[in-house]
């Protein structure tokens, strides 16, 4: 009887909801004009400050972040959004950060929680002219399509101010796969059995189930209604970027939209390209001022000509390997070939062909078509093997270089191109902004996670069975009967999670306004995590020196200057003043006792690489010919802390076309968590697992050259004389 009453009161009693309020902000008529004005305020950087931040941070309000934090994934438990503030102030010692939880996982209660936590972080510094950390509110529009045509990818939406009057009532989510996973418990049914298995340490799993269930209980907002007029407690959705941009603009708030992870094969369909997102209706240039080049999920900068699948009139085909690249569909065939008694037989070849077709049919979950497969069987398939810390399962036609080179020719007289500055981020999923300050604690400071034992692994990913001679043919329906985690090939991805990058802004003052203006004017750059100082200027602009991010008509020989200083070597532990004020116990709790703690030696910048990209003028112009990477490599002299190089482009006038230039400052090699990816050599791979298969205290350190990417300077040739 007591149980009945308890059950009824708890389960049947209903939960109080705290609705958000619709902000009644009038659309300012000068809104767009102000944005445009902000774009021109960039100033040369000689006496500017450089502030470092992280504009891509998840907390456990994001369902996938929640999953990472579960003990079953080797996580540490729940990290509420408020932890991000402490981490940014005391551990990574950032100047600014933004919370960008997945909109699909947020609901009115958690959206309010996110807004509140940002305000609380800003509250202490509210009256200060020099806040030590400035927090921004945002969310991630997490779109995933099953086909290249319906896929747009992820975009972070960040707002300038933090008051409810200057924030939208709801985040805008994307319908589709991500939303389904984030709001329907049925899609994650196997998780429901985990609390039973984990008993009595099941709290985290139960929270996870509650979290997903809670997100599913809010109705979808009606369509065709102005975003400001919608009920506060519905879930607002935008299926494509044009709808997202329209809804954002209906609020009339200062907002920036930052596409990210556009090369990540983890969820990006085979054959995807950025092309359609160059269309005017799918690219709001006022909102999309920046693009994320690099994050804790890998690098999306570099373009390559390989493809994971080719498309013909008959459908997808598996491309043959090259010296640098092997598609995973091809590799699937080779794994089956290795299992043949007579690899040269016709029967074996039929099985190989079938394996490739089976792989392509289910694309991102292709690994499940091979019974008994294991991660090392796949070698480095799907990877960009000569790229810097490339994202997992690389999709080069989503790379930033491709985005900037490609044109849209819907109006052939005025080809359209993307004009975006560069940032880098952590994309951290445990409320830890700016994790790249040190290379340590792989399982805490990156998103690498995994099952703690073989039995957990099987319960999450299913039993992979024994190797068989033939691949398994799946339909979408039969595929969906597999454990959901198994379909995501998470075990292989763990080798590609890194500590992530930072965004740096050039600002005249330490303020929210100045940071925002720098982002609007693209006077920003990204780093792979180290605090490299970087300046990139056009020396002979029409009105003098112009900084990175500038876009201008130009007709003479452009002259540039790059200055770069390496990051400081890090000392172990935390600075004494931080330990004294925060306490060792709290520091141990939030950042494993390791803070940003510079020593006096600057690491050396070894060289400056300059990348030149010609903007595509006709639709048939091959992209491969337009991206020159590197166009120039200029070594830095030994000795000075500051590397200063100058160069010019005498061919600019002859080319007579729109061009952009950006600089990459390359630092001396240093050990990097997961710097070796799958660590393949001579056909043998040693993946760095996020689960029990790799020791938790093994950070899988491999030397890499940390770097900084300037935003480009965009030169417009102007009309032909």
């Amino acid at each position: 009887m007591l149980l009945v009453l308890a059950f009824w009161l708890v389960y049947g009693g209903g939960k109080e909801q705290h609705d958000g309020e619709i902000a009644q902000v009038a659309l300012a008529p000068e809104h767009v004009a102000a944005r445009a004005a902000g774009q021109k305020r960039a100033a040369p950087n000689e006496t500017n400050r450089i502030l470092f931040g992280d504009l891509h941070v998840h907390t456990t309000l994001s369902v996938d972040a929640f999953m990472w934090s579960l003990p079953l994934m080797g996580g540490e438990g729940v990290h509420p959004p408020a932890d991000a503030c402490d981490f940014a102030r005391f551990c990574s010692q950032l100047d600014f950060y933004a919370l960008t939880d997945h909109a699909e996982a947020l609901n009115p209660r958690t959206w309010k929680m996110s807004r509140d936590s940002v305000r609380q972080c800003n509250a202490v510094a509210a009256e200060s002219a020099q806040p030590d950390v400035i927090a921004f509110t945002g969310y991630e529009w997490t779109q995933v399509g099953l086909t290249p045509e319906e896929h747009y990818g992820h975009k972070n939406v960040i707002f300038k101010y933090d008051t409810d009057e200057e924030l939208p009532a709801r985040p805008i989510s994307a319908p589709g796969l991500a939303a389904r996973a984030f709001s329907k418990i049925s899609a994650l049914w196997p998780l429901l059995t985990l609390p039973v298995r984990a008993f009595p340490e099941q709290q985290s799993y139960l929270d996870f189930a509650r979290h997903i269930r809670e997100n599913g209980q809010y109705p979808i907002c009606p369509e065709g209604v102005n975003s400001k007029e919608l009920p506060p407690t519905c879930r607002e959705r935008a299926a494509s970027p044009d709808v997202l941009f329209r809804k954002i603009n209906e609020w009339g708030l200062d907002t920036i939209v930052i596409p990210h992870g556009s090369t990540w094969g983890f969820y990006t369909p085979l054959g995807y390209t950025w092309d359609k997102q160059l269309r005017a209706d799918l690219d709001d240039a006022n909102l999309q001022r920046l693009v994320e080049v690099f994050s804790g999920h890998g690098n999306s900068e570099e373009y390559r000509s390989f493809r994971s699948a080719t498309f013909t009139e008959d459908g997808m085909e598996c491309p043959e390997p090259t010296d640098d690249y092997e598609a995973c569909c091809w590799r699937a065939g080779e794994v089956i070939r290795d299992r043949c008694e007579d690899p040269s037989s016709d029967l074996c070849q039929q099985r190989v062909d079938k394996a490739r077709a089976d792989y392509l049919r289910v694309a991102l979950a292709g690994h499940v078509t091979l019974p008994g497969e294991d991660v090392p069987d796949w070698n480095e398939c799907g990877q960009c093997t000569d790229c810097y810390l490339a994202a997992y399962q690389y999709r080069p036609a989503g790379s930033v270089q491709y985005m900037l080179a490609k044109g849209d020719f819907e109006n052939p007289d005025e080809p359209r191109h993307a004009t975006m500055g560069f940032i880098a981020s952590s994309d951290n999923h445990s409320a830890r902004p700016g994790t790249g300050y040190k290379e340590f604690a792989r399982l805490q400071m990156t998103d690498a996670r995994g099952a703690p034992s073989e039995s957990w692994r099987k319960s999450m990913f299913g039993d992979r069975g024994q190797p068989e001679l033939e691949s398994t043919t799946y339909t979408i329906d039969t595929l969906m009967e597999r454990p959901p985690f198994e379909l995501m090939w998470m075990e292989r991805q763990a080798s590609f999670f890194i500590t992530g990058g930072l965004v740096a802004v050039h600002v005249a003052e330490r303020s929210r306004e100045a940071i925002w203006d720098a982002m609007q004017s693209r006077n920003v750059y990204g780093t792979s995590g180290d605090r490299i100082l970087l300046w990139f200027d056009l020396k002979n602009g029409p009105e003098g020196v112009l900084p990175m991010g500038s876009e201008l008509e130009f007709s003479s020989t452009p002259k540039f200057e790059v200055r770069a200083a390496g990051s400081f070597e890090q000392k172990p532990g935390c600075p004494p003043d931080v330990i004294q004020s925060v306490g060792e116990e709290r520091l141990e709790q939030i950042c494993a006792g390791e803070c940003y703690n510079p020593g006096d030696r600057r690491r050396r910048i070894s060289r400056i690489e300059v990348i030149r990209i010609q903007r595509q003028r006709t639709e048939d112009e091959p992209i491969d010919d337009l991206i020159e990477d590197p166009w120039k490599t200029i070594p830095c002299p030994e000795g000075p802390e500051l590397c200063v190089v100058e160069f010019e482009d005498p061919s600019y006038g002859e080319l007579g076309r729109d061009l952009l230039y950006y600089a990459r400052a390359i630092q001396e090699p240093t050990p990097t968590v997961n710097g070796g990816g799958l660590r393949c050599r001579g056909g043998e791979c040693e993946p760095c697992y996020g689960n029990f298969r790799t020791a938790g205290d093994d950070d899988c350190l491999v030397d890499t050259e940390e770097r900084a990417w300037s935003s480009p300077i965009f030169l417009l040739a102007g009309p032909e004389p």
Partner: protein
Amino acid sequence: MSRSWLLAGGMLVGAALAVFYIVRVPDTVEPTADAVAWVNDRPISRSSYANALQAVAGDRKSGTLREDDRERVLQRLIDQELLIDRAIELGLPERDPQIRNQLATAMIEFLVRRAEDEATAADEAALRAFYEENHFRFERSPQYRVALEGGEVPLPDGLLLAKELEQRLGPSAARKVAELEVGELAIIGEDGGRYTVRMLERRDGTLVPFNEARDAVEAAYLRDRSEAAVREFLEVARQHTDIRVEAQP
């Protein structure tokens, strides 16, 4: 049925009892005041009935109840009680993962909410004590305006935080500069890399007054107390529960 399952069942009953003691109707409340019906001496509250009616009305196109809706809703609530009775008899809370999830999740939520309620009602003295113990959360950084002569890496204009000095000069030099009084000069570096820094203005760090930081103090206090409440409950529960781990995972 393994021993761990039996143990799990026992734990669940314990957790359910704990939930009851937390959310039970206080003894001082008149037991019949809010009941619309009774099932085995257990009340169906008028507020539950009203909520159910509202939900049914909302489901109707007209937005209003039909003539027989009131009776039907009441009978369905009674049915629900009967079903729950039977579910308990059959041991579904021990067996059904979803029910177990709901129960334990609600437990956590109640712990957090109760702790937050207590913290919200905390008097000024408790908040001030928390503020005093956690000064580091409510401090503003010192600022310095300096002039640099020589040196490779340029210094920004204006008042700078210690971390901004550090970014350009390095930590040792920044510490040295931060100790200068206004007008004093420091010589940094050696030989060819030598440069000077003069302190032009300094503003020492300050603790934000309690009244200014009150919102932040209250938020941090709420968070601290709710986390502690869950942690303390689990610690106590573990102390009073026979937990035996029989196999290494």
